[in-house]
């Protein structure tokens, strides 16, 4: 894998989208499995930075993680 390819995987893992959970098992982003430990740490740090920016741009101060959680609450 080239560094450029790896960085595109990190970019995906740093996003808030995750597949809908099935039964009681957490569902990981499939790209997460293709990353080594250093790249996973990078994805974590990038996600943290992105969520700060997202929350700052949201009228309610919510990041995409917060919006994803709220969308899972049955209405």
């Amino acid at each position, binding site marked *: 894998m080239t560094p450029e390819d790896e960085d595109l995987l990190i970019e995906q893992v740093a*996003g808030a989208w995750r597949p809908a*959970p099935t039964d009681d098992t957490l569902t990981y982003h499939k790209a997460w499995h293709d990353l080594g430990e250093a790249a996973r740490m990078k994805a974590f*740090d990038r996600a*943290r930075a992105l*969520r700060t*920016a997202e929350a700052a741009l949201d009228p309610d101060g919510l990041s*995409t993680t917060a919006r994803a959680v709220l969308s*899972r609450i049955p209405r």
Partner: protein
Amino acid sequence: MDLDVYLSAIASGDTVAFGRWLADAEPSVRASLRSFAAVVDVEAVLQEALLRVWQVAPRFVPDGGANGLVRLAVRIGRNLAVSEVRRTRARPVEPADLEAEPDATVAAPDPMLRAAIAECRDKLPAKPREAFDARLASGGGSDDADLATSLGMRLNTFLQNFTRARKLLAECLGRRGIVIDQELGA
């Protein structure tokens, strides 16, 4: 800042109050999971932990200390992460990391930072901004492949545009003396 001011409303099923709690609690809970990031998908663990807070909030009894619900979220998240380490048979996390008392301090949002990020976002070129805005608008509800399709881009093009947007945002903030996190511009 004690986020337990939202507790009674959350316990009675008020999703707006839960959203306000989430907005301020998420960074602390996420930070508390960093030691697991190499071995579990923290984003998946974090979202599940925050959802479980909503589910158990009606039965939560505060201990009198500040940010009881945040501390509960941290405990739920770490327990979930430990379960994932066992389930996936990932390499063990350092015992010191497991035993460390997580920080449940909650920082107030900075209005000047909000204004600066909004101004920098408005200066993004068209395609990078489309990719950045699509992620924001989806609220974590669509994967990047679907977002790319909706914008008429290939997945790699979408991701390259998103990367460019992220780096330009960091550069713009940097010119104003603002560094959110080195990784924003990496």
